[in-house]
């Protein structure tokens, strides 16, 4: 930047060059859409995004200021806490014009404005669950339902996890009969892509049901 020649009228050089290390979209891409990848902490959201994304997953951190319950300062005011919420995301260029972004959601159903913002305009969500911690998925599903965001569920098969029958998972999570429920290996690109295809097929069928 310092080595760029500057004119007398424009001391700041115009932004004409691209930065190294940044994966820009192909020049033909002009439209974007997004899906959410939801699930509790360490269920495998980032692994999933990483295995399908055409670029290394990126992370952006939002600072949330909120009141901590039950802790007052000297003046009797509620104690404020600043928390950072990390959002890991990736992308997939689907054709010449269109790119799909995959946003990992926060691991807990807190910071509703952030959730609302992520959900707004999203086509739907893939919810990854772990059969050893199904109860933790409940709150996430409830939140997505509250946001009115359609979703499909995928059981991330961890090594050593019991191969629960999907029926019992469906029952434990109280899923509706039409909610897709599949098994997936978030580390595997083909498996993860198939999971996304299942989700998007479901979203498509919902909008345009076959007679």
């Amino acid at each position, binding site marked *: 930047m310092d080595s760029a020649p500057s004119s007398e009228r424009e001391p700041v050089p115009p932004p004409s060059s691209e930065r190294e290390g940044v994966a*820009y*979209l*192909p020049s033909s891409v002009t439209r974007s859409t997004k899906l959410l990848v939801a699930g509790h902490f360490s269920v495998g959201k980032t692994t999933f995004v990483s295995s399908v994304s055409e670029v290394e997953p990126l992370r952006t951190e*939002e600072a*949330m200021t909120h009141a901590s319950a039950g802790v007052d300062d000297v003046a009797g005011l509620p104690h404020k806490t600043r928390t950072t919420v990390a*959002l890991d995301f990736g992308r997939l260029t689907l054709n010449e014009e269109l790119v799909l*972004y995959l946003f990992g959601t926060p691991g807990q159903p807190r910071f509703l404005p952030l959730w609302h*913002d992520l959900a707004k305009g999203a086509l739907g969500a893939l919810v990854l669950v772990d059969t050893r911690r199904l109860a933790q998925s409940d709150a996430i599903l409830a939140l997505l339902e509250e946001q009115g965001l359609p979703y499909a569920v995928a059981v991330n098969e961890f090594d050593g996890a019991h191969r629960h029958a999907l029926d019992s998972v469906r029952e434990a999570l109280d899923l509706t009969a039409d909610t897709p429920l599949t098994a997936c290996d978030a580390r595997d690109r083909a498996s993860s892509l*198939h999971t996304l295809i299942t989700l998007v097929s479901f979203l*498509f069928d919902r909008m345009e049901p076959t007679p």
Partner: protein
Amino acid sequence: MNGPRRARDLVRAYVRTGGLTRPSRDLDLSALVRSTTVAPPVEASGEERRVLALCSRQRALSVAEVAAHADLPPSAARIVIARLMDHGLLTTPTRAHITASPDLLKEVLDGLRALV
């Protein structure tokens, strides 16, 4: 110098409102952004320059990618990007309006299937 003062204004406003400062327009994290041929003014803030240096005229990046690469929280990035758009320094390739439609879903489905 106006630069540092402008940057401090942004930080002060952001902290004062607890992150609720609204950008001048609705920008989704997946909205695409490109730079224009308009040169940045001398008064451009540090954050504005960082964002401008990142953006390309030919190839877009999403608001989220700009935030990540510029090391800004998404909410701050949106404010900066919106302001730069207001001044014609950044643009979006198409309307940032995302609507789910059967056509779009079919397009996404076809695109995903082609990758397997």
